């Protein structure tokens, strides 16, 4: 019987061709990611479990991003705890202010197609963009992996999402995944793997695929996968064409899916996730007549803080200025994105349009700093969650949107369809 992509990845990991959905198996871990909020807990559990050494220090990446820059005096305790752990059990890879973990893991080559990766963060699913199986776990399990290099998993069933055709100009990867989540609902893919395919998907950049993989967890998915191709190989530093060994990482024609969803790219429209559920999706065109005024716009996060996202916003903000009394906060996802955007003149455009450009970090998305709001304020944000109270009080209304839509909302000071700014 044919295999899905996740079955292929796990079979490769186990060197066992008989793996199928539903099996409970123990995988060898290729890489783990721990971030600053949880490192003290991981360190404590690791010691409590009685481990004396890390199974393979080169496979451990520690990233400070949620608490950078520190906004509360106790935050730096996490950096010290991480540094101490690295010193005692390292050498491990440590990034102290280089950007958001999920951006850095693929960008810096820590994740390759076919890898099995776990992280102490739910958006670890992001690495599916390069055809890796990656998912979020708690800090207790992470401590266990650090000692053993292994984790049990249940091989998930797969929902296949086929998208074919040409996307409208004002639609981006963000609109695709929001629409899919709206159709699946917040628990529609629980325990399942989402597998994206079709010529629209093939045409997406790795950055666009990252946006999609990143948000699959919002439908409950265990992972969100793309078949690695030449673009993936180039992104991962594996040369211009995908190495033969990795070319096997594609689903079989006769693979068995729990569900198949079909989309025509031409049918997508700019959408928003409305307060306060990620699956509460509405077309922007339907919201616009409600004249919803916007207090703040946030462009950033591991969902949409990449160069092409900044470019997209800059395309409408060039030689324009955001609306009076509206704040626009731009938080590039990594140090190299910041540098590239500076070189390309994108930061100039955004700053001259009135945006504040912060250091690369999780920023507002993790709700501890970076633009916290208060009662009755409205924020249009490009990140992945609009949960109640995520960005301030429970009365803050959070709308999730694409970078293009967000930029247009900043210009107009109200929820606006990006179509109006198309050439």
């Amino acid at each position, binding site marked *: 019987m044919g295999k899905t992509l996740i079955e292929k990845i796990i079979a490769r990991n186990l060197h066992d061709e008989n793996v199928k959905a539903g099996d409970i198996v123990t995988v060898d871990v290729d890489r783990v990611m721990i971030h600053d909020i949880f490192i003290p807990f991981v360190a404590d559990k690791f010691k409590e479990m009685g481990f004396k050494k890390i199974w393979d220090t080169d496979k451990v990446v520690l990233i400070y991003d949620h608490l*950078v*820059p*520190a*906004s*509360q*005096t*106790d*935050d*730096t*305790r996490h*950096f*010290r705890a991480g*540094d101490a752990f690295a010193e005692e059990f390292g050498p491990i890879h440590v990034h*102290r*202010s280089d950007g958001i973990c999920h951006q850095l893991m693929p960008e810096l080559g820590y994740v390759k197609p076919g890898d099995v990766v776990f992280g102490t963060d739910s958006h670890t699913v992001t690495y599916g963009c390069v055809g890796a199986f990656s998912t979020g776990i708690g800090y207790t399990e992470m401590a266990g992996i650090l000692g053993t290099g292994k984790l049990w998993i249940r091989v998930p069933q797969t929902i296949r999402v086929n998208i074919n055709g040409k996307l409208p100009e004002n639609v981006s990867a963000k609109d695709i995944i929001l629409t899919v989540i709206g159709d699946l609902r917040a628990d529609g893919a629980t325990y399942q793997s989402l597998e994206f395919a079709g010529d629209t998907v093939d045409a997406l950049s790795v950055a666009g695929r990252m946006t999609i993989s990143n948000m699959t967890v919002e439908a409950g998915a265990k992972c969100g996968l793309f078949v690695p191709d030449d673009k993936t190989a180039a992104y991962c530093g594996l040369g211009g064409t995908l190495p033969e060994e990795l070319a096997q990482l594609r689903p079989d024609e006769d693979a068995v899916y729990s569900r198949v969803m079909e989309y025509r790219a031409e049918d997508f429209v700019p959408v928003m996730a409305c307060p306060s559920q990620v699956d509460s999706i509405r077309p922007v065109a339907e919201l616009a007549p409600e004249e919803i005024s916007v207090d703040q716009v946030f462009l950033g996060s591991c969902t949409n803080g990449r160069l092409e996202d900044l470019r997209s916003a800059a395309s409408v903000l060039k030689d324009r200025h955001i609306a*009076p*009394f509206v*704040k626009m*906060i731009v938080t590039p996802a990594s*140090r190299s994105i*910041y*540098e590239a955007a*500076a*070189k390309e003149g994108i*930061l*100039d455009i955004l*700053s*001259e349009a*009135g945006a*504040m*450009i*912060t*250091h690369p970090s999780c*920023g*507002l998305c993790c709700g*501890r*700093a*970076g*633009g*916290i*709001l*208060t*009662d009755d*304020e409205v924020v249009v944000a490009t990140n992945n969650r609009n949960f109640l109270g995520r960005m*301030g*009080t429970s009365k803050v209304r959070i709308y999730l949107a694409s970078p293009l839509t967000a930029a247009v909302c900043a210009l107009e000071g109200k929820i606006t369809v990006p179509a109006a700014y198309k050439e």
Partner: protein
Amino acid sequence: MGMTIAEKIVALAAGVPEAKAGDIHTVELDYLMSNDGTTHLTVDMYNSLKHPRIADKNKLVWIVDHNVPCDSPKTAASQKKMRDFAKLNGITFYEGEGVCHQVMAEKYVCPGQLIFGADSHTCTYGALGAFGTGVGCTDYLYGMVTGKSWVLVPETLRFVLTGELSHGVTARDLILTIIGKIGANGANYKAMEFTGPAMKTLSMSDRLSICNLCVEAGAKTALMEVDEITLEYLAQHGGRTPKACFTSDPDAVFAAEYEINLSEVVPVTAKPHFVDNIAPVSECADVAIDEAFLGSCNNGRLEDLRLAAEIIRGRKVAPKVRFLVVPASREVYNAALKEGLLNVFMEAGAIVMNPNCSVCWGSCQGVIGEGEVLVSTGTRNFKGRAGDKNSFVYLASAATVTASAIAGKITQAF
């Protein structure tokens, strides 16, 4: 009898021919600047007045700079109160444009003006020949409602600057040295006036840095004469014209006069926890640091960033040190971006932030934890100023801070 610059500005603002130290005058204010540190309280008090009114909204400039971007729901509520009031009453309002004093210098302050700011470092404006002084929000409210306030005319301490700063020594070292000499209350209630042949060697950036820190000696205001450097700065920043250009009369009376030879100044640091606790940087070498901060209304200008970039170009921040680089305003940020300076810092591993008060203010954006050490170009090193109450702040120049960030310990740059 002759008058000092301070006396002349007060006389002009009071509409009287003469003012002398010790007099109390009612003055007409030229600008009233307020920031998010206290404006929410001003708004509450305003709303509690029997007959609330604004004398002249064009004199008000409100700037959100302390917690930007906002870090907590309570702060957001306070800032929203300020923003909503500004919107409702047509008050000039900036958010995220930069540290208030830098924004005021770039866009508003003119020689001869008398300006109240609801922030102690309002004395910065002396660099442009204006009498700027910090007030609380009640005084601010009085000025906002009436357009006026009362001023006790200050005595003046005069600093005659000669010689020239050596390579690697900055205006920051000079003013720290002066504060160390006269003490944290050495100029309490007084004006500090700077003059002398060395003035022509000091850029507007240097001058702003010097005047900014005078409040750390207790000064009510700081003042400098208007010269070509001042006029050029005004021309480049909106083509502003002076209200009046004053110098102190030859027979003006000064409370004290000091001659400072700039060539004798060495790189110094203000050790914890007082700004007048001054020592040469060389004495503090080997103090290990956790964080370094380049920014603030004192040292976040383009010249400071250039100096720092020159030192750090091609080098790296020490692995565990957090080096915060925070341009003082959007104008500075944009210029530094265009010159490629921000990427120099990024490539070195620094944390480059949007213009804001940052850790100088110590409530968000890079606060330090228990037992940690910060070397900072900020304005104050009071106990707990930068975060945890049991932490340590050393104040120093942009050069010293940058060299320290690279070395991981307090280090003299040149």
